[in-house]
């Protein structure tokens, strides 16, 4: 029985070809939010997208997720359209706000993705186990409003992982959290990234939008730097520090060096600090 239509390793997780986004403002002026962008994210790759506020990184993520239609160019997710990726529940979305259903318990919120579009619920994840993994054991019956911001975001992560998606799309998931919780959560995310993954699927990939350089370097295999609007990718920096990474890694020379490269790329938005991705 073929459970997943996508062959492992056959296709990159994300491929963008000349994807751009232009929209009309209320005054009738055309505003280019995302400059034509081409990009390949391999299966299993954890990619961070950093850039100043309003540079179009969220727009780029929304186009990958199929929530915003690009003005031009092609998006493919494991060789399919974003719409097909949605239909087969291949995407795990996490937003800046936890966006949980206020009237449902933590457990029922985590279950939501399994419940919706049920024909596409393959390999049912053990929700109890998942709640334990994200550290919410004992809070299954609580309402979101009864939890702290960090706990709510853990619940949102568990909800995204419950459908066992081969591609995680994270839009500044820790931006609303306090500094201490944020620093914890990035290592939690590293751990969760590989959790309960169906071996028949390609290795799980992630696109992680953030405006924190430290966060990007700490967690990603690859940091893409975007210029101010109209956003385009001006640097593609590999982060080769071995995994699993520990919080202590953030004191190493290697980490400091990597963040320096990313910061330099952010400072000189017009001249790429590192050659662009060939793709």
């Amino acid at each position, binding site marked *: 029985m073929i459970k997943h239509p996508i062959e492992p390793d056959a296709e990159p997780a994300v491929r963008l070809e000349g994807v751009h986004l232009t929209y009309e403002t209320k005054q009738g002026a055309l505003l280019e939010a995302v400059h034509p962008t081409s990009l390949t994210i391999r299966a299993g790759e954890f990619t961070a997208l950093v850039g100043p506020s309003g540079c179009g990184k969220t727009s780029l993520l929304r186009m990958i997720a199929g929530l915003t239609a690009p003005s031009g160019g092609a998006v493919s997710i494991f060789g399919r359209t974003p719409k097909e990726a949605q239909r087969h529940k291949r995407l795990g979305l996490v937003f800046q706000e936890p966006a949980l259903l206020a009237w449902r318990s933590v457990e029922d919120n985590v279950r939501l993705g399994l419940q919706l579009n049920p024909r596409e619920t393959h390999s049912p994840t053990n929700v109890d186990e998942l709640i334990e993994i994200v550290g919410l054991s004992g809070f299954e019956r609580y309402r*979101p409003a009864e*939890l702290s911001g960090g706990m709510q975001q853990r619940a949102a992560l568990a909800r995204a992982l419950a*459908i066992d998606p081969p591609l995680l799309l994270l839009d500044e998931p820790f931006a609303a959290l306090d500094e201490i919780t944020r620093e914890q959560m990035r290592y939690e995310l590293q751990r969760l990234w590989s959790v309960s993954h169906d071996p028949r699927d390609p290795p799980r990939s992630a696109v992680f939008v953030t405006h924190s350089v430290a966060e990007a370097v700490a967690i990603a295999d690859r940091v893409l730097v975007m210029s101010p609007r109209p956003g385009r990718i001006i640097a593609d920096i590999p982060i080769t520090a071995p995994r699993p990474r520990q919080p202590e890694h953030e004191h190493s020379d290697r980490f400091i060096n990597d963040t320096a490269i990313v910061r330099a790329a952010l400072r000189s938005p017009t001249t790429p600090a590192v050659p662009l991705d060939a793709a």
Partner: protein
Amino acid sequence: MISEPIRDLDHLEPTTGRIPLAAPDVRPLLGWIVPPLVALLIAAVAIEVWVRVAEVSVWVMPRPTGVIENFFADFGRYFNEGLKTLGVSLGGLAIGTAAATLLAAGVAHSQLLERAVLPIAIMVKVTPVVALIPLFIIWFGHGWNPKIAIAALITYFPVLINAIAGFRDVDPRMHDYFRSVDASTWEIFRHLRLPAAVPYLFASLKISVTLSLIGAVVAEFFLSGQGGLGAVIWIEQNNLRLEQVFAAVLMLTLIGVTLSTAVVVAERLFSWRLDQPVTAS
């Protein structure tokens, strides 16, 4: 400090399994009930004294003791007529609420439907609906139907407007999440829009429950042949029997209080929140 935890527990539904173990303290409740009762008693005594001392005619103002005496002496009558009024009121409320909720669901999904329907709904809203009673009598005859139609129509508008607002009060990120797993329009309605609208529906029910009672009583003035407290008031004022008029009004007040309380109790049982949740961050 005694009343503090009780307020917090109001936010929990019984289904969470975290039901308060201790019996709720009734003292704060008494604090809300006793002062208005005392005020009412003082007013009644004042009127009683005024009517007796000034020898006010019974055709102008009956004695409160006389009203109470009549109310209990003829309780069966007021109770039975009250049931009729209650039936009209609840029948209208049920039909009006159901129709308004259904239309709101349509309007929340279709801008075309909104543009077509909302101006008409507002026209109906600004029209004093009781003006249509004579027309409804021609259309629906002299039975219960015209009365229920008025109660339904008067109930309709607040529910419609609140339900539309509720169905649309959806976190856009949550909507994005539903789309990201290709949830159907029905799934988005059933699991996102409908629960989001529940607090709005209860808010509108608080308004429309008393409106439906007004509609029922006014309709009964016109259709005094079928009884109901409106008919009792109409007939007794023609006979200048003011004790009976006041007793019927007293019964209406009791019905109104009961209905409003029922809505509040239902809200506590079935609504997922009464106001902004207490965030513990």
